[in-house]
């Protein structure tokens, strides 16, 4: 089965130094991602999804550190130097960011943003790069691509910008695409289109996709498996359908209850669960969700529940998981 795995993450920690102390943004996360598989990462805002994505990439902010194991295609990513990482970025792992209004260079034409990676990694000529750029824009559904190549990002709509950003990420045919909340900054009507585009491309190119969102609904329909993240840790992983239909962690359950569906809610609003995320600099012992959990016992506040199988391709880190029947009652 190991040949089928593209990314193996084991006990990953990613800490960031800040004036308030060391932020333990990712604090012991393990998961795997198969070749050609789409994995969703879900969790409310601040649970460490973006830091985790950047930790996998190796694009960490200054004064930060990573420990654990990070294997990509059998290679240990944590041991790589800057030059070796630059070889991997774009060609093996590429990334799409949340806000296309901020992730495209404001002063550089679309054409150069699309071609500069190809020119560097693939060594193609300028004209070859341009014609590839044109094909990419076609592939991601940008109409009138010749004109869009000459445009600056501010001359495009938000949806078009994100399509361009996706084209940029695809330029050097990566094996893994990490999309960090790729639709959160977009209009609701555009969100679906961009998600469908990502899914289509992932299938056509047999690429692996890590789709990050605060919305379990978004992720469940577009991925094969999901991992629910809370306060820097994994709460539950499993086949998307299973987790969506029968969430066993009370946090997953609450997430589903809190965000009815993509059409109605744009941003994560967890007003339904009383309380807030624990301090990222000084996280509590035991289960990090205990303070907000209705089923928490003394044990939950002292001992961290380990990730344990609870079904076929379904793991949960909880001492008192939701009963299958109970889950249906609380459901949507």
């Amino acid at each position, binding site marked *: 089965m190991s040949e089928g795995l593209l990314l193996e993450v084991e006990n990953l920690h990613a800490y960031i130094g800040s004036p308030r102390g060391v932020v333990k943004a990712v604090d012991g996360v393990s998961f795997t991602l198969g070749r050609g598989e789409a994995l969703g990462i879900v969790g409310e805002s601040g649970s460490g999804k973006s830091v985790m994505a*950047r930790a996998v990439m190796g694009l960490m902010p200054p004064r930060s550190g990573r420990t654990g194991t990070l294997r990509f295609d059998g290679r240990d990513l944590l041991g790589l130097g800057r030059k070796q990482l630059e070889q991997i970025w774009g060609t093996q792992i590429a990334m799409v960011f949340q806000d296309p209004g901020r992730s495209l260079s*404001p002063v550089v034409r679309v054409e150069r943003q699309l071609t500069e990676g190809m020119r560097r990694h693939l060594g193609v000529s300028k004209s070859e790069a341009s014609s590839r750029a044109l094909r990419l824009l076609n592939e991601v559904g940008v109409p009138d691509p010749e004109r869009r190549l000459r445009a600056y990002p501010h001359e495009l*709509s938000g949806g078009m910008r994100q399509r361009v950003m996706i084209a940029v990420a695809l330029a050097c045919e990566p094996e893994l695409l990490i999309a960090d909340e790729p639709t959160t900054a977009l209009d609701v009507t555009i969100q679906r289109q961009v998600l469908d585009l990502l899914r289509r491309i992932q299938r056509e190119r047999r690429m692996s996709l890590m789709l990050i969102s605060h919305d379990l609904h978004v992720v469940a329909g577009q991925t094969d498996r999901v991992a629910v993240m809370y306060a820097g840790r994994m709460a539950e992983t499993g086949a998307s359908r299973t987790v969506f239909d029968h969430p066993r962690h009370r946090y997953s359950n609450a997430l589903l209850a809190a965000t009815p569906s993509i059409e109605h809610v744009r941003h994560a609003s967890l007003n339904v669960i009383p309380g807030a995320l624990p301090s990222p600099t000084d996280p509590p012992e035991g289960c990090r969700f205990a303070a907000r959990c209705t089923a928490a016992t003394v044990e939950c506040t002292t001992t961290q529940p380990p990730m344990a199988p609870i079904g076929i391709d379904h793991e949960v880190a909880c001492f008192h998981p939701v009963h299958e029947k109970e889950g249906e009652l609380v459901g949507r």
Partner: protein
Amino acid sequence: MCASNTGQAAVLRSALRKIGYAALVVLVVTFGVSLMLSLAPGSVAETILGENATPENVALLNKELGYDRPFIVQYLDWLSHAVRGDLGVSPITHLPVTEAILQRLPVTLELAVLALVLSLVIAVPLAIVSAARAGSALDRGISAATSVFLSVPAFVAGPVLIYFFAVQLRVFPALGWVPIEDGLGANLAAAFLPALAAALVEIAAFHRVLRADLIGTLREDFVAAARAKGLSPSYVMFRHAFRPSSFSLLTISALSLARLIGGTIIVETLFVLPGIGQLIANAVLQRDVVTVQGVVAFIAVTFVVVNMIVDVSYGLIDPRLRRAPAARKIARGRSRTVKPVQKKELTA
């Protein structure tokens, strides 16, 4: 897209507003300075007649020069000539002020441009290194070194430079000016030390401003996105980060240039250079009101013209600011984040 009539009208309207605003600035400055000069004790007549002049003679000469008239009449008279380029004749040198300024302008202009270029050539690479290694020992060292330059005034830096380069090393002349007609090499050699003395003060400000803006830009998603393509940090720095970070630098270097053109009095006096600074320094000492007024008007015009040029050049740096006059306000008010300007979008 639709470069419509309304768009052009908006550009025209904003251009007219800017010119009107600039004229107002020049008017206020010259009026204020004229008023201050008229209120100051002493008069040019006393300078001309010497210490032993009788009050009657002084009054008589003042009347002859027109200084007995009400202030507002004097100012309007001066203004009506000034707008036609006639800044009056100095009662002391008997030279037209416009001519005096034009005579000295090449010296000051060369000094100003050279000082600006020198300070940018030193400050920009330092700022880039600082920002790329923000918080490191190297960054702190550079910041400390440039602060030293800032706190050493030109009248200290000048003699030190003269001592070191002219007296000890003998690579540059200590004092005086060599016109460009007498050979570019000799001209540049004469200009180098004074330009460096004037530049040192600017370096710290340029370094600080560009460093801060670069650090802000380097935190932007588009820099991470560019890095995520596998582009090297230096490529990303120059291609993606530098331009959007250079607004404040452009603004303050323009102000520096205008200030330098206005005359670096200390540097010109120190190095005995026949520039604008020396002109105004002498005029003030001799209570030569006409010359002071003229030079002040020239400096004010220089400031507003340079400012207008800067305004236009924001668009060269950032395509979002082209053809969108209102957007320039954003550029001017902007600190570090690059805010997208909503223009007519290409929708699909």
